[in-house]
């Protein structure tokens, strides 16, 4: 019985952290548990949350995508910069297309050329950032379309559109990842690439899809961010990859691939969102959030390590490695 409780606590640890944070924030600030503030939290986490959905796929395949922040900037610049010429719908579509193309390039570098994802997406990070700065001549662009400026915050059934997009995307992808043969393939590819290939999985297609999806979600996040601030800025999103990766790993997705879930990612992103919102409400300066986020990440890694050690003690003894 005691063991079962322990098991549940260990497995639902992020949910527990989330609950503790939620209760603490409610107790410490009267403004936290209000409809308006919760809407705020949802809008704030939506951009990073959308990208975290894509990132979960990439990390499950044992990869990583560092270029998402630059894609956010490029998409915001395209979506806003082309407004006067093409209208918002076409400019946003072009931004999404740009995201897709960058994702495919990332995927091709990883699959066909064989460059380590850490490096290929690091190169892409630098390249796309340069591109975003280049096309705008390093200056932010103000939006000209009032409808676009309201897009992200338009309420749908009382929930801001950006949050709705996030939640719908999350649910659809969760279904794919959990309940379709195709979705299970991502786990197979991530836990053992060679075995997956030998059993006839189209390994390259899975990897391409994961990178394409991630950059696509980054572009989507960029458009919604641009709408929220009604600006296309070439310098936004510098810490997006770190925040998003933190959320995904916090949610229990393994950095070594083959394990993870989008429910976990949702919990991870909410933990970061509520932490930041709660600390803002009680007046803790921004920079304490930086330190808390860092310590949280280290604790998660330590915890995972401890937990893994218990699960795989036998294997550890044999190889001396995890």
């Amino acid at each position, binding site marked *: 019985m005691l063991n079962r409780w322990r098991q549940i606590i260990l497995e639902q640890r992020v949910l527990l952290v989330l609950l503790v944070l939620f209760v603490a924030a409610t107790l410490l600030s009267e403004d936290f548990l209000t409809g308006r503030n919760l809407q705020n939290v949802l809008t704030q986490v939506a951009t990073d949350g959308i990208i975290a959905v894509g990132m979960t796929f990439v990390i499950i395949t044992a990869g990583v995508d560092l270029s998402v922040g630059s894609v956010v900037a490029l998409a915001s610049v395209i979506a806003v910069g082309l407004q006067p010429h093409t209208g918002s719908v076409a400019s946003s579509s072009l931004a999404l297309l740009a995201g897709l193309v960058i994702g495919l390039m990332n995927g091709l570098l990883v699959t066909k050329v064989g460059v380590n994802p850490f490096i290929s997406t690091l190169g892409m990070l630098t390249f796309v950032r*340069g591109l975003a700065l280049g096309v705008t001549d390093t200056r932010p662009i103000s939006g000209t379309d009032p409808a676009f400026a309201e897009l992200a915050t338009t309420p749908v059934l009382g929930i801001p559109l950006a949050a709705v997009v996030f939640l719908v995307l999350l649910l659809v992808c969760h279904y794919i990842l959990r309940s379709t043969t195709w979705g299970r393939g991502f786990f197979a590819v991530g836990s053992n690439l060679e075995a997956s290939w030998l059993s006839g999985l189209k390994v390259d297609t899975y990897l391409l899809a994961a990178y394409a999806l991630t950059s696509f979600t980054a572009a989507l996040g960029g458009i919604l961010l641009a709408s929220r601030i009604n600006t296309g800025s070439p310098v936004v999103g510098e810490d997006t990859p770190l925040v998003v990766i933190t959320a995904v790993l916090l949610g229990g997705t393994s950095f070594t691939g083959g394990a993870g879930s989008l429910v976990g990612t949702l919990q991870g992103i909410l933990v970061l969102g509520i932490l930041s919102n709660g600390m803002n409400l009680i007046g803790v300066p*921004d920079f304490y959030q930086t330190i808390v986020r860092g310590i949280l*990440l280290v604790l998660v*890694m330590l915890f995972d390590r401890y937990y893994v050690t218990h699960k795989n003690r036998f294997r550890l003894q044999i190889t001396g490695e995890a």
Partner: protein
Amino acid sequence: MTDTLTVRSDVRVRRQTLADLLRENVIWAVLVFVVIILSLASDVFLTPLNILNILRQISILGIVAIGMTFAMIGGSFDLTVGATMGLATVVVIQLQPVDPQSAAVAVVGGLLAGLLVGVVNGVLVGRLETNSVVTTIGTLYAVWGITLIYTKARHIWVVGMYPPLAALGTGRLGPFPLPIFAFAITAVLGHLALTATRFGRYLYATGGNSASARLSGINVGRVRLVSYMLSGLAAAIAGIVIAARVQNVDPSFGVGFEFDVLAAVILGGTSLFGGRGSVLGTVAGVLLLGVLGNAMTLMGISYQFQLMIRGIILVAAVAANVIVRRRRG
């Protein structure tokens, strides 16, 4: 490099041919090639003034990159280096080094800050065996947060820095700016530590195959701990040189620098998975980045296009490496 051969020189069966030498020093060959091209293309490039300028500009990147090379050879990432450098810079300036005593305290304080970050990383990754990428991203945040709290997130400066300390950043010995010497000394010491000490050989063994290194009696955790301490120390030295040079600092200084450093180390041929790499390679990687940056500036290419070209160079270099290796094996 010749790391596997130097362990037991009697196992060497084949003499090195010129082709071998060239293949193992691709990055130096590329560097020489680029320098020749640029000298022909520009009158300004190969002038003593410009060369000294390049060397001074890259010395910071070089010092940090040599430190990171140690962590990488041991098979672990250190993405904290940029934040560590920023922290050391901030510590030196915040301690207001205006006289000999305060200058000594500031320098020691900066070095200790770097060592401490290295110890924390080393204990987490080396001893407790957490994933190095994520852990050092976490400590990056923590160190940055500490820097922000320490400075109250404000720009800080020192007026009337103790002249000998300031000279470390701004002074010259003959025609040579002093930061170049800091870089050169770090490189020589780093090279010796890797090639001529037991620790160096243990580090290659740990990075190459940590399980077999452990079975051969190497204290893998301690080797990694030391590699992180060296990485933190190098970042701190760079931070002190920067503090001496500019004497004022933004609290977010250094964050993001880790990616430039990583690019230089990887260009220099150090493996992402540990076990392979050298200080000489890293120095070449740093020089190549510096030379290309300088050439692009001379040609009047804007910062944003330099970024794009840098991204392409990084991916192309690694891709070429992968393709060559695939063809050979």
